[in-house]
């Protein structure tokens, strides 16, 4: 077995570890739902008034003793999830280093490598975020995306570890692509946070709590109501920080992601100036990066625009993240441009 195969093996084991983390997070999430239901039935007679008076805040307090029956196995699931997440992230790091050794260069030259490094960034950000506040849902979403990405990478994007052609032989391959991957990882976790924020918001501000007529609620929210975000299946949301805090967390992540993305854009332009003889040429990849940048700038503006702050700003995040993903997949696979280098 050579070093490149060893690297692939490590990616497989990382995918396995992350799958275990995914399952553990899912169990944790299910338990959280049960616990939340237990809390609710335990205190329903007493707190109905208080709960509706002060919005979500009361509901997000720590579960009272009634819920602690469910919390021991919960903690075990959360513990397993946390440690397998760290393990998977570490395995992935080893895989990436080995890949770099096998190819004799920085391992971010093709879609396969981009995917595994991007997944590594996302799980690393998740590790950091979960240290501060463990949110099972975030774990499920991010490890879910990570496992999917890794399996996809191994099965359809995999290419031989090899040196690259002259146009890629530059330290910018490290800076530009590296930062782009990092930004994608950060955006992934930020996106998950925004999803959570919208769910939480829809739950705490369900139909009955809307001050305007239901007809005028925006479509996404009506859709969520159809999915019964306010129902028992989403009771775990009561264990999650309230929408305001999620929004703050999501904004902080997006701020970091946006700065990294801006740097990707500038670094790409500097590199293009050296490699292609122009800093900007509306190549499909450049267009995609630009569109994502503008969409995220719109998000930052929406946050500060009356009537757009909060949930609607989060919808812009969904668009932005979709553009980031499309820029990586659709543009690489289906549109020919100057970035179509590595076969895949």
């Amino acid at each position, binding site marked *: 077995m050579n070093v490149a195969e060893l690297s692939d093996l490590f990616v497989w084991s990382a995918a396995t570890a992350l799958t275990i983390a995914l399952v553990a997070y899912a169990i944790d999430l299910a338990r959280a739902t049960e616990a939340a239901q237990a809390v609710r039935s335990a205190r329903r007679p007493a707190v109905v008034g208080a709960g509706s008076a002060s919005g979500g805040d009361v509901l997000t307090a720590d579960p009272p003793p009634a819920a602690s029956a469910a919390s021991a196995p919960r903690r075990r699931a959360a513990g397993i999830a946390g440690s397998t997440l760290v393990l998977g992230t570490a395995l992935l790091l080893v895989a990436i280093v080995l890949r770099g050794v096998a190819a004799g260069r920085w391992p971010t030259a093709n879609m396969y490598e981009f995917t595994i490094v991007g997944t590594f960034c996302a799980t690393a950000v998740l590790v950091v975020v979960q240290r501060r506040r463990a949110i099972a849902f975030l774990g499920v979403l991010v490890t879910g995306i990570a496992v999917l990405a890794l399996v996809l990478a191994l099965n359809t994007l995999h290419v031989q570890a090899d040196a690259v052609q002259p146009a890629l032989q530059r330290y910018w391959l490290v800076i530009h692509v590296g930062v782009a991957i990092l930004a994608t990882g950060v955006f992934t976790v930020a996106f998950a946070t925004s999803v959570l924020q919208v769910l939480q918001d829809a739950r705490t501000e369900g139909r009955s709590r809307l001050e305007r007529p239901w007809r005028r609620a925006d479509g996404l929210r009506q859709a969520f109501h159809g999915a019964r975000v306010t129902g028992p299946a989403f009771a775990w949301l009561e264990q999650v920080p*309230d929408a305001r805090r999620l929004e703050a967390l999501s904004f902080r992540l997006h701020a970091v992601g946006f700065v990294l993305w*801006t740097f990707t854009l500038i670094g790409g332009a500097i590199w293009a100036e050296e490699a292609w003889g122009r800093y900007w040429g509306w190549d499909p990849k450049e267009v995609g990066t630009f569109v994502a940048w503008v969409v995220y700038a719109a998000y930052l503006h929406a946050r500060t625009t009356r009537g757009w702050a909060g949930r609607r700003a989060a919808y812009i995040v969904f668009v932005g993240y979709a553009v980031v993903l499309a820029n990586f997949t659709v543009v690489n696979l289906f549109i020919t441009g100057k970035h179509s280098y590595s076969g895949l």
Partner: protein
Amino acid sequence: MTDRSRARQGARDPYRPEGLDDAFSDDATRSAAADEATPGGAAADAAAPETPAAGASSAGPVGTGAPAPLPALGAVGWLRWAWRQLTSMRVALLLLVLLAVAAVPGSVFPQRPQDPARVAEYLTDHPDVGPWLDRLGFFDVYASVWFSAVYLLLFVSLIGCILPRTRVHLAALRGRPPRTPRRLGRFPAQGSGTSGDAPRAVVERAAAVLRRRRLGVPAFRVDVHDEGAGTWSVSAERGYLRETGNLLFHLALLGLLVSVATGQLLHYRGQAIVVQGTGFANVQAGYDSFERGSAFDPADLDPFTLRLDDFESRFDPRTLQSRDFTAHVTVTEPGGEPTPEQIKVNHPIVAGGAKVYLMGNGYAPRLTVHDAAGEVAFAGTVPFLPQDEVYTSRGVVKVPDVSGGQDQVGLVGFLLPTAVEAAPGLWRSVDPQPAEPLLVLSVWHGNLGLDTGVPQNVYRLDESRMQQSVDAAGDVVTLYVRPGQTVDLPDGLGTLTFDDLPRFVALDLRHDPSLAWVLTFALLALAGLMASLFAPRRRLWLRAAPGADAAQDEGPGAATTVVTAAGLARGDDVGLQPELDRVLAAVLGAPPEPSSPSAGPDPQEDRT
């Protein structure tokens, strides 16, 4: 998070980050100030940062359906209204979204500046919608009227919103921190403690702590107030950098646009194919294609010369992928000495104020054609363009200068650098390096059409007035020629000699005097963005009152100074409470009592 939104929490939106009009989260200050007997200082201070948004916030309601007093609205009124709309945050947001949408068709449809051939192909494939799309600018999106309109409007909007904000910010930079509000209890970050020192001493120590320098600048701007009756307080503000950064970011975007536009006017770019052993002179006629901005005069081209001495290429022996290209050239600037240089992919050189890029390479066989009369009708190199990884290269040899009365000759075909006969009569190249070069050509004769006045593509043969040579059996004649060989042309047209096989390089030359500016503004924008997103903007207040006053609260016997502190931040700020705690600890010399009202189960979480 503003206090206003906090107050609304139960009623309307549970969370609402601050908007343009909340230059600071001033509501707390204002409501606190309203409690004061004389609302003078603090209220005026609180109102000041509101001014920047006067445009936006007054446009807000207009936009949401409550029009400004209509009768008074003359032409000027409408203009003002339109201007306010344009410079409102809402419209800026709309324009940003529009810009994102408008940029998409450019990667969906082929674009003329990038790939004219694919545009032509699209037009023939879609004869119905194609012309319409063309008329609407979909094949040159980024120069189209609608795309330009969106970004120009956006930048006008940007100017309209940035200028007043700059003015207000400059005033704010000279301002003082707002006075200590009477009640500190309603602020998002809080702390308290007691001290054995006199109130004045405590407050002065606090001022010293707050003024501590970080990276050479004081962290806070600090005012000390004597509030009478032995009570002292200190008010402090930091984070002017945040708004500075934001303005810098937006102004740098403007600078970026202006420098890119200037570059468009002043630039030129051209392509030249240079064959090994020959040179290139930097005059417009020396280029194969040349394009320039309207403010660039081709007479200003710096007439340096460049000679291709040698060309090296390396390929991966297994995958045949390219690994390295190096062009060894000699550059002679006017009046200068010839200097040897190397051009590589990714490593352009600078000559005569232009960057010279290595964009492509290939083989240019040196051929000699003798016509039927035995005269030399053609002698020179002909670049053959590589079509694939193994440099199967396509080319055309046009021989117009035949002796009088004879047919002109055109040779069309391929160069195979390492030719292998895969099947009888079927040759292909297996390696990009010239191990076994072979020219495979078919022969045409007749009129090349060079004198029709229509410019011709040198890589295409216009066959409309020519005839292909066939042998006696009616099969097309194919010539196979190796370097050093001479073969007879069919139909008694003469002979062809393949002399040798030099290489050529395709160079891009580009001059753009705005590059340094573009880079500078881009980096300034990045720096401004980071300051605007990461520099914390905070206000802290600390009040020290004699213990006697506090006796009612603290119970009898508290002969100490009672210290209360509060903090307010712009936006969501995790670091506010820790900073307040740090200051208190430094002032009191002991950890403060955790007394934040929102101190929940997780002290790490943000208090906004």
